[in-house]
């Protein structure tokens, strides 16, 4: 298929992309610039896009203002990793079952999973709070991991299911004829071929877990030692003033792990998705 656009159409397309990107990226640019400015100059008028007094001072000050910052960063990564791990443990067998078996209630349960996704986490905060209190899990890491994983499993199942369905059934039949059990086939044949799909689901879960932990952290956890970074950033809000530049610096550091994972895996994802296309 060859698409040819006139110069006017191209201009329109690029303008639209430009506006879209500006809206998407401008907050990040402002965040970076704010982190580089001295606090006293933040609200300077007239607005200056670039000034000579910019420095990395805030990036060294944050560790003094909030001494527990390394702990918060660790918590964030730890919580997201554990959530992803638990999510995968449930998603892989469930997605395989949905992709390959016929059973009663298959369509209904899949629809229910989607319905769960329609509720924003906030709606379920109070019931979840009561549930976690009943189980004695409040103020533990589990209080942030379990709800996080529960919200990510349904979409994970959907993503991996559609990926597994693309793996030819004949491969499994061949393994079956050769005497392999379902689990052996899953381990030796299906999962190695599903690696690109597993990475997609893993990245999706990690980023999702990283983003949603804030809500669960401020609701289900009071212990400062267990707080993830988004909640820890609150400590930059003082009684008298908000240390905006340091807050922005800490936020950028908080985004970095996700950014790295994304940049590193994006290349791999593209390669993986084409290499995994099973030619039968």
């Amino acid at each position, binding site marked *: 298929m060859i698409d040819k656009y006139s110069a006017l159409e191209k201009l329109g397309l690029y303008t639209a992309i430009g506006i879209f990107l500006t809206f998407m990226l401008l907050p990040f640019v402002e965040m970076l610039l704010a982190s580089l400015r001295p606090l006293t100059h933040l609200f300077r008028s007239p607005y200056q896009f670039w000034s000579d007094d910019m420095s990395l001072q805030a990036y060294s000050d944050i560790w003094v203002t909030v001494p527990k910052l390394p702990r918060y960063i660790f918590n964030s990564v730890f919580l997201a990793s554990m959530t992803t791990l638990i999510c995968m443990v449930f998603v892989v067998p469930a997605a395989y079952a949905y992709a390959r078996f016929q059973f009663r209630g298959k369509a209904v349960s899949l629809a229910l999973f989607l319905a769960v996704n329609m509720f924003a986490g906030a709606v379920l905060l109070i019931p979840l709070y009561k549930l976690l209190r009943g189980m004695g899990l409040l103020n533990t890491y589990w209080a942030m991991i379990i709800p996080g994983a529960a919200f990510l499993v349904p979409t994970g199942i959907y993503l991996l299911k559609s990926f597994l369905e693309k793996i*030819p059934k004949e491969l499994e039949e061949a393994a079956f004829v050769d005497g392999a059990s379902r689990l052996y086939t899953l381990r030796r044949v299906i999962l190695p071929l599903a690696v690109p799909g597993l990475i997609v689901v893993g990245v999706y879960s990690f980023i999702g877990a990283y983003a949603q932990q804030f809500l669960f952290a401020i609701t289900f956890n009071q212990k400062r030692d267990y707080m993830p970074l988004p909640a820890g950033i609150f400590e930059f809000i003082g009684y008298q003033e908000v240390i905006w530049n340091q807050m922005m610096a800490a936020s950028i550091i908080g985004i970095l792990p996700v950014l790295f994972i994304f940049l590193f895996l994006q290349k791999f994802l593209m390669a993986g998705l084409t290499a995994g296309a099973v030619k*039968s």
Partner: protein
Amino acid sequence: MATVALQNISKSFDDTQVLNNINLSIEDREFIVFVGPSGCGKTTLLRIIAGLEEASEGQIIIDGEDVSSAHPVDRGISMVFQSYALYPHLSVFENIAFPLRVAKVPEAELNQRVEHAANILQLTNRLQHKPGQLSGGQRQRVAIGRSIVRNPKVFLFDEPLSNLDAALRGDMRVELASLHQDLNATMIYVTHDQVEAMTMADKIVVINGGNVEQFGTPMELYHHPETQFVAGFIGQPNMNFISSTRTASTATNCSIKADGIGALTLPVSSCVGKEGDSLCLGIRPEDLSLTSSGQGFEMQVKVLERLGGSAIAYGTINSQVSGEQSFKAVLPGDVQVSPGQHIHLQVNPDKCHLFTSQGDAMHRLKAEV
């Protein structure tokens, strides 16, 4: 190695009857080909023998043992799939070794058996490659290698050559036939290509609409097709069918008037019925010969395919029923005929086939076999 017997096998998916009371008995070391048009149930039958599909009714007996509900490995079968079903992430070695790894065969024996299979199939210098790096014919051989490494009693092939180009298919036919001689195994082979069936089979099973139309050696099927379907399916190019009416019959012959050809008396038995019955005359294109004008019947040639040694003429003959009827004839390779020309053909009644209006063949008394 093994005999295979199918007893009253039926299969239906929901309300659709796919196989209808199939009975077959396959001798030890035979090369059996299931052939039929697509959707006739031949692949389903193979999958039932493999144990990938369960028969709705009936038993599968391998080597005298009822294996109807046994696991494929316990049946002693192995299968080569139409798409080869190679594991793309494993090397050729690991692909071939897969059944042995499942069976936890010791490393030394495993190596030796894979090497042996690779030797037979000329894959020795490809063992470390991935399937994606191989040509179609090599992938085919890896799939066969994976099936022979386990020393099964029965080999099952599901249209294994249909993904190959014509030249390679011819080579692989010969390789498979010689592999059958080397391995001395019972093989069951599914194809829709009657050329593969004729060239490779010890015995052919023609399947149509879930029923076995006929089971016999290739030449039995060629000379004595039991039904009009088998007659039309076996033989290349396929048989001409001419509507005819019975004029007289005795115990050993049947006189007919064939539309566009004229009166013929065929040496067939069991030609019971009365005058005026409508019958169907079958003439193989290769049983026709050219004659001088004024003799035989006339055919108008529309397309002439020259194959070198012979030429196939496609055209029409006059018909009282439909004006003209399509007709094929095999002519000598260097025949001086051009499209549009009329030629005169004659046919030896001994070589003709005769079918009732139900499609059942009458037994030919002067056939070669």
